[in-house]
């Protein structure tokens, strides 16, 4: 445990040194990043030993605050969530050294970067509510400054603002959550929460569950609390997007996992709530994702989709507990947990590759890109890897975790009864539909950016980046394949982590490993056959075509014999998804701005489709307007006259004095 704490301290020290040396940007970068690498390697040792089941050490220290104490421990659940932090942390940091070119603000950027990583590491180990809230807030603030790195742009400032508000709505709910729990149980340590969780009344437990869904959900980006995600990710530098989407939003999922242990045995309604929210979020998320033109915004919406899938897994797990079907609960939680790891890998990879595209072309607008594969083959092949994994297509890792959830659905259906079959129908329909739509979304982004011809001629020549941007992507792509192939070996650890952290789960004789093992082994055999057969066929095709290279020709493609074909005539991303966007008009808000060429001598015309987020426009905007209307009158109290503020203080103190004296 000390080793872990030293790792955190090393990372944070790196950040502080980066500020000190901010006059020498290269030095600052070097120090900060190498501290992240060293710190992650140091803490990897305790993390791995916690996962393989070495009993967790607890580290408690005196603390000068009135409530709470410094109490950290690394149990298997924390350690599993820690894996993305200590892999994506150093990888994105290495990537950033090449990605960030301008020396301005480098020192403070790395200060916040290192702080964010250290805060997440402490957050995952915090065993005390006060400590947890403090590091939660540090995480929120430091990520806010990371998002607003390019703060000379008004769009970036606005995105940062949205993020700050959204995250603090979450904190508000969390404060209430922990305050109520602390009040009821009389202590702020997590193990104390768990011990007295059964004494909560069902009504209070449900209120607490609602608070935790809002509080943690706003960080995870659970629909409809996702609105900060699609703004913040395009605004942030790409390595920050990768870290936030791959790791930070999972802290919300971790919170949901952890807090389930504090509020007693869950009734089935909680499970249904999460399943319904997750199903809605995944469909809405992927429909929005495929309708976006902005590459990074599209990836952000895809995160909303994946968080939805994770939520469905959590909900299934809760239903399993409520129905005393331990196999279902372990499959649900296990699928959710596996998807957390898988999503970290492929979304991190996608954001880094997308970042490379942005870095080289200075454009995030898919409608203007195209044909990049010829100029940047390395980036293209890694983006394709990520895209296939994100579409849950075999043989990459995305498929395996979705398979576990499908499997949970089938197991649920086989127990008979209306409720389990309904759950199965919801799970299978949603996952199938979302899978199909994900193929549409990712063939669009991968296909239209990297294949074909450039739609607009760029004034820069994009090329593959240097090794510092390449290596992290390569590592993640290897992880995407490895997690697909080795997932059966990971399952026992996931199972142990889930069973040990909560008394609700404890002692349930649920062989996740035994249930899934035969299926997963067969799936891996199929993966192997698939790759082998592909290799043979591809070699055959190459020989067939290579052997006749002299006679194979290149010709223009068929375009109805049009005389002057141009790259701008290619299908655009907007036209590609038009049929689906039309089908989902109920969810999307499509605005078409069309200026038709007019008059006898028409000169120009234009056509633009704008997709607006309905949740933001029709739910949050009116809500905040309403809140402003009610709260504005109170502004009288805040007028800037310090001497009157002093009177407020005095009056409050005297009032408190009377109240205390009265008691």
């Amino acid at each position, binding site marked *: 445990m000390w080793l872990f704490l030293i790792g955190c301290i090393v990372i944070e020290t790196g950040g502080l040194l980066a500020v000190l040396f901010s006059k020498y940007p290269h030095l600052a970068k070097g120090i900060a990043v190498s501290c992240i690498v060293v710190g992650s390697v140091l803490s990897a040792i305790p993390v791995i030993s916690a996962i393989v089941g070495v009993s967790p050490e607890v580290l408690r220290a005196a603390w000068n605050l009135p409530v709470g104490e410094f109490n950290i421990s690394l149990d298997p659940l924390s350690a599993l969530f820690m894996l993305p932090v200590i892999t994506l942390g150093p990888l994105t940091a290495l990537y950033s050294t090449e990605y960030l070119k301008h020396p301005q603000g480098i020192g403070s950027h790395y200060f916040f970067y290192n702080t964010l990583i250290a805060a997440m590491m402490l957050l995952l180990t915090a065993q005390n509510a006060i400590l947890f809230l403090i590091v939660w807030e540090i995480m929120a603030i430091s990520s806010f400054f990371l998002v607003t790195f390019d703060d000379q742009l008004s769009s970036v400032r606005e995105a940062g603002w949205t993020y700050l508000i959204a995250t603090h709505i979450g904190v508000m709910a969390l404060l209430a959550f922990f305050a109520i729990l602390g009040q009821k149980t009389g202590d702020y340590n997590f193990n104390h929460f768990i011990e007295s969780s059964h004494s909560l009344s069902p009504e209070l437990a449900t209120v607490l569950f609602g608070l935790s869904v809002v509080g943690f959900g706003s960080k995870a980006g659970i629909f409809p609390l996702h609105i900060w995600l699609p703004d913040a990710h395009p605004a942030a530098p790409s390595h920050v997007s990768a870290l936030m989407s791959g790791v930070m939003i999972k802290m919300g999922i971790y919170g949901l996992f952890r807090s389930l242990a504090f509020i007693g045995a869950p009734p089935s309604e909680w499970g249904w709530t999460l399943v319904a929210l997750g199903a809605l979020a995944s469909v809405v998320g992927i429909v929005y994702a495929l309708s976006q033109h902005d590459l990074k915004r599209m990836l952000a919406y895809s995160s909303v989709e994946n968080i939805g899938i994770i939520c469905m897994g959590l909900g299934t797990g809760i239903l399993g507990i409520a129905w005393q079907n331990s196999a279902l609960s372990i499959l649900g939680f296990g699928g959710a947990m596996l998807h957390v790891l898988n999503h970290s890998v492929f979304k991190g990879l996608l954001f880094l590759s997308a970042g490379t595209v942005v870095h080289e072309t200075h454009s995030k607008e898919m409608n203007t890109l*195209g044909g990049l594969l*010829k100029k940047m083959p390395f980036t293209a092949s890694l983006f*394709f890897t990520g895209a*296939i994994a994100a579409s849950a*297509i*075999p043989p990459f890792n995305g*498929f395996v975790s979705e*398979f576990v959830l499908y*499997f949970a*659905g089938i197991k649920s259906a*086989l127990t008979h009864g*209306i409720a389990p*079959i309904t759950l*199965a*129908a919801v799970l*299978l*329909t949603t*996952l199938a*539909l979302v*899978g*199909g739509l994900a*193929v*549409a979304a990712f*063939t669009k982004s*991968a296909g*239209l950016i990297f*294949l*074909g011809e450039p739609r607009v001629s760029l004034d820069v020549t994009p090329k593959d980046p240097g090794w510092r941007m390449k290596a992290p992507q390569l590592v993640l792509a290897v992880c995407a394949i490895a997690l697909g192939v080795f997932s059966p070996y990971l399952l026992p650890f996931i199972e142990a982590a889930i069973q040990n952290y909560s008394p609700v789960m404890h002692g349930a004789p649920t062989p996740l490993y035994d249930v899934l093992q*035969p*299926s997963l082994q*067969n*799936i891996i055999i*199929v993966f192997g*056959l*698939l790759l082998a*057969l*592909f290799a043979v*066929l*591809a070699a055959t*095709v*190459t020989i067939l075509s290579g052997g*006749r290279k002299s*006679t*194979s*020709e*290149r*010709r*223009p*493609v*068929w*375009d109805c014999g049009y005389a002057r074909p141009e*790259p701008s005539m*290619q*299908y655009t991303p907007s*036209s*590609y998804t*038009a*049929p*689906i966007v039309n*089908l989902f008009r109920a969810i999307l808000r499509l605005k078409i701005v069309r200026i038709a060429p007019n008059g006898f001598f028409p000169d120009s015309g234009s056509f633009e489709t704008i997709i607006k987020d309905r949740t933001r426009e029709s739910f949050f905007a009116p809500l905040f307007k309403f809140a402003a209307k009610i709260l504005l009158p109170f502004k009288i109290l805040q007028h800037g006259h310090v001497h009157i503020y002093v009177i407020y203080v005095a009056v409050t103190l005297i009032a408190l004095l009377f109240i205390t004296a009265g008691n």
Partner: protein
Amino acid sequence: MKPFDAITLFSALLFSPLLFGIINRIKAMFAGRNGSPLLQTYFDIFKLFRKNMIYGNSTTLVFQLAPAGILAALIVALLLIPWGPIEAPISFSGDFILLAYLLGLSRFLTVIAALDTGSSFEGMGASREVTFAALGEPTFMLGALLLAIHTGESSLSRIFGSIQLTELHPTGTTITLLVAAWMILLLTENSRIPVDDPNTHLELTMIHEVMVLDTGGPLLGIVTYASAIKIWIFSALISNLVFPHLFEKPAMQTVGVAVGIIFVAVVVGIIESIMGRIRLRNIPKLLVGATALVATGLLMTLAG
């Protein structure tokens, strides 16, 4: 694994191009023509393999290797399909999910190869393909779920092995609904009338054919062979639902599957002869209708 277990694999590899021949023969019969030989697709494929390749100006390695991936995914998918009483070589709990996603892989590669040409027509076809495929996925999954609930099994081999067509309700009605829904799925996934017309010559209205518009030579040969295997997979699934269960003896059941596959091809031919295409904007309704059929079956199972 006994060599006989892979009967679906070998029969599909050998005979799948025959299905196109049967369909075309039926269509010719309805039109009062003699029609092309039953083995025409074989001739076409052999002819294509002897030809030279012509690539589009902007195509890359993706275009060149995608057909190999498509064929690999479909051949591997064949290993998951049982043949009446004979279990599939690879059979496990939840195998139909992998089957659906292997078909998804082949679709992903088809679409990617189409986009690699940079042609607007191919983009158009790809766009339609992903739209309709996304709507078709739930039909397949819910159908498999319905079967799983009905038989209490969770692998294709066991599911098809334990269907008992002895009573009209609920088994008979459920299977009927499912056959209808999966038939719609077959027509959509294999781009047949009324969803898509494989013989049309108007690029603007095509779905699947337009995605291989600029594919030629051996690559087109592979793609044609792959689409023959794909229709064989769907026909075998539908055939397995009904035909083996009409017979008592395992030997007869084995023959029954083959009869069923041919029967499905004949039905496809008849549908193509007596129906026109429906408008593109109505295809989603057809697909949602297919899902609704399965959902009805599910409700009936729950109620009965």
